[in-house]
């Protein structure tokens, strides 16, 4: 990973109307690295999973904020999605496919599995009561070519 070329941080309310904004804004920022349409789709879904988790799990549909940081390197996108909500007691368990703490909401327990599958790197840092930080990386495009 080379020198950081560009970066963006946004802070938004943990409202479900912001889900589509969040994934589109991240995708729009990543366009600078010339990703393919499929890569953009992968990034959108991974962002959507992490953002949904903030709204649903971190704040239980209540008030809260989340922060999304996107860093662009030569051919890599690094995304950090952070909340200040209730945190995860057992991260390893939470990351298991099909594990969900809210089966009654028909959640599939596939959120982390999707992030893992669609991105090239996934790191989750969390502690009970301390919020959660999800860090993901994806290698995209062929070459960083900045156009306008």
């Amino acid at each position, binding site marked *: 990973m080379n020198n950081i070329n560009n970066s963006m941080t946004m802070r938004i309310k943990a409202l*479900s*109307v912001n*889900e*589509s904004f969040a*994934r589109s804004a991240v995708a729009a920022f990543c366009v600078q690295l010339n990703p393919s*349409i*499929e890569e953009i*789709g*992968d990034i*959108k*879904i991974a962002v*959507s*999973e992490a953002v*949904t988790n903030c*709204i*649903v799990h971190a704040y239980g549909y209540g008030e809260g904020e989340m922060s999304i940081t996107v860093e662009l390197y030569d051919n890599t996108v690094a995304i950090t999605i952070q909340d200040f909500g209730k945190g995860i007691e057992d991260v390893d368990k939470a990351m298991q496919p099909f594990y969900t703490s809210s089966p009654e*909401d*028909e*959640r*599939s327990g*596939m*959120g982390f*599995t*999707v992030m893992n*599958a*669609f991105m090239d790197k996934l790191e989750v840092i969390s502690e009970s009561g301390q919020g959660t930080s999800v860090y993901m990386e994806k290698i995209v495009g062929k070459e960083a070519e900045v156009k306008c």
Partner: protein
Amino acid sequence: MKVLHTTSYNLLTIALQGELDECCAKTVRSELDSIFATENYNAVVFDLSMLEFMDSTGIGVLLGRYKTLASQNRPVYITSPNTNVDKVLKMSGIYSIMTRIDR
């Protein structure tokens, strides 16, 4: 998100249009359940050709509907997802219970 439906020869076709995420999941769920309760059918096809985006919340919605329909012995099929939607469906293993049929 729009939920459209038509029934012909006992086949109920549900077309999902737009972006299926957590924001609209609740509405979509109840729209689907009310269609399932009022139509006359013995099998269901989800036509995803107009579905632009779906994440794992959508998987949950589909699986939830599947459970009810399967318990009534009504098979469920999926048709025409775009590349990205297809990728999520594949990795969720959903195709092993809802066959993908393409024309």
